């Protein structure tokens, strides 16, 4: 008798397919890079805060300050590095929030259909109708959110409908498969059917979407910080750009806006590439080819 298959064996085909795809690998490299920077932030640079050295303000890139300084004399390099940490935190927190709400809603709506589905879809549609950025702007303004974690959670709270909708569509498809009927026939408990049989098989589109949500949550958070809302003390990339804009220095100090912007773009592109790599790897038409 063979050995019991590991997690790798289960997904072996897909993992191999993923590693053959340059797009996905680039994305993975980018994400890993940013993750490492975020984790190693304390090793790479001093934590940012307070006021910098007045004489050193608005200096271009030098050996001492590879990314230059901002209008208060603070080192840009540290800001961007610590910004990576803030951004990863936001992305992860937002995605977790969205998943915790979205996945169960999608599963239940898709499996039970009928009344449960009507309520679920109704909720989803309402949230999808409401334009997210303006609403988040209003909420962060009204609730006077001072912490970046709260911003992340709010972003997650408005991202769950997308995940729920995809989970539901996937669940509907899987629920109509005969092996689900077989599980019901064999007397397997409903909870087990949903969270074991259906979830595992319905999860592939959801996983793709997770990476996309991580990318969009950073865009949203950057937008919010750029507009001056959210956490005043945390140096997220959007916040750095806000400082650039409000200090009026962006016209003269090109390094002030370039580096944080590049960081954001790198982050988003990496996640987008990663999601495309994952999507192609999980697509049966392509992997079997």
């Amino acid at each position, binding site marked *: 008798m*063979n050995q019991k298959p590991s997690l790798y064996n*289960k997904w072996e085909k897909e993992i191999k397919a993923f590693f053959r795809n340059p797009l996905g690998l680039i994305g993975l490299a980018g994400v890993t890079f940013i993750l490492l920077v975020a984790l190693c932030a304390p090793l790479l640079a001093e934590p940012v805060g307070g006021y910098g050295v007045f004489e050193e303000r608005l200096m271009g890139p030098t050996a001492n300050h590879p990314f230059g300084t901002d209008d208060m004399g603070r080192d840009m390099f540290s800001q961007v590095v610590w910004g990576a940490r803030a951004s990863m935190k936001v992305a992860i927190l937002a995605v977790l929030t969205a998943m915790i709400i979205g996945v169960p809603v999608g599963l239940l709506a898709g499996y039970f259909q009928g009344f449960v589905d009507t309520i679920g879809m109704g909720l989803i549609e309402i949230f999808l109708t409401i334009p997210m950025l303006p609403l988040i702007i209003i909420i962060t303004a009204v609730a006077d959110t001072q912490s970046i974690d709260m911003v992340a959670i709010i972003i997650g709270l408005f991202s769950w409908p997308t995940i729920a909708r995809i989970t539901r569509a996937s669940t509907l498809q899987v629920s109509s498969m*005969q092996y689900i009927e077989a599980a019901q026939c*064999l*007397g397997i408990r409903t909870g087990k059917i949903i969270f074991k049989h259906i979830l595992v*098989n319905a999860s592939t589109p959801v996983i793709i979407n997770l990476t996309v949500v991580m990318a969009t949550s950073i865009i949203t958070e950057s937008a919010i910080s750029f507009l001056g809302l959210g956490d005043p003390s945390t140096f997220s990339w959007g916040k750095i750009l806000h400082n650039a804009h409000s200090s009026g220095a962006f016209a003269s100090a090109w390094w002030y806006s370039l580096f944080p912007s590049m960081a954001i773009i790198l982050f988003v592109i990496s996640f987008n590439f990663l999601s495309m790599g994952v999507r192609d790897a999980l697509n049966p038409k392509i992997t079997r080819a």
Partner: protein
Amino acid sequence: MEKILEVKNLKKHFKLNSGWLSKPCYAKAVDEVSFDLYRGETLGLVGESGSGKSTTGRTILRLIEPTAGSVHYEGTDITQLAGQDLRSLRKNLQMVFQDPYAALNPRMTVGECITEPMLEHNMYSHNDAVDKACELLKDVGLDKSYYYRYPHEFSGGQKQRISMARSLAVAPKVLVADEPVSALDVSIQSQIINLFKDLQNEFGITYLFIAHDLSVVKYLSDRIAVMYLGEIVELCDKHELFENPRHPYTQALISAIPIPDPTVKTERILLQGDIPSPTAVPQGCRFSTRCRYCQPICLEQHPELEEIDGHSVRCHLHDRLEAKS
């Protein structure tokens, strides 16, 4: 012989078009179906697509909820059971599905598929379940080394064997086979049919064998029921059916079976038209729109299932027709 399953007046009507502003219409997939299943026998259930045979099988097992009627298993009315009682009962009544590719969870190993129901019903400890699963793999003709493989590594016929092993895991007394060989290559079909026979001999399971092909059913069945548009139109012993078919529809079906002898002239009875939609069931006899013997009474009055010497027929003209053999 002892009755193990009694189906009485089973109905399944599907409601379509449930808009607020439109009239509801019903698809009468299964309409007043009654029959008994005797312990240890094989009852073949045949009919074309749309006859309601698969729906009947699913409704009996409560995979689809019946609209009306009752199903008694060993005396208990299973249509009234719920929750834990229903789950326990499921051990006794199992189904083998038509599409071997869709019937197995692609992310579960063969062994997991088979042991899952055993563990779910607390039938064995984990180690015993693994042993039992290996035994079952042997019974269906597969090597026990397949335990840790995934379904996609197997052919259609092998997948069907795995499905059967899974159904047998809970030691069912009644097995409903929903066109289990229709999706397989013809050469594999006979292997699987023989497997059904062997398993029945070994475990004494009662079969309800659903198929659209009479020749498949001929080998396995003891009795055969013919369904048309949601109703049973003929029910009798296998030999009796082929020697003395009384319903015009059955006669047409039998005449369509190819005979592998080029010298024998077959007189095919060709049916006119198509099977009507279950939403617009004809008045009177449901077969009247295609029957070559149709009389005025067939259009007006709906015939009942009448039994004569163990041979049931639903036709006004059954005693006036000559059987073609």
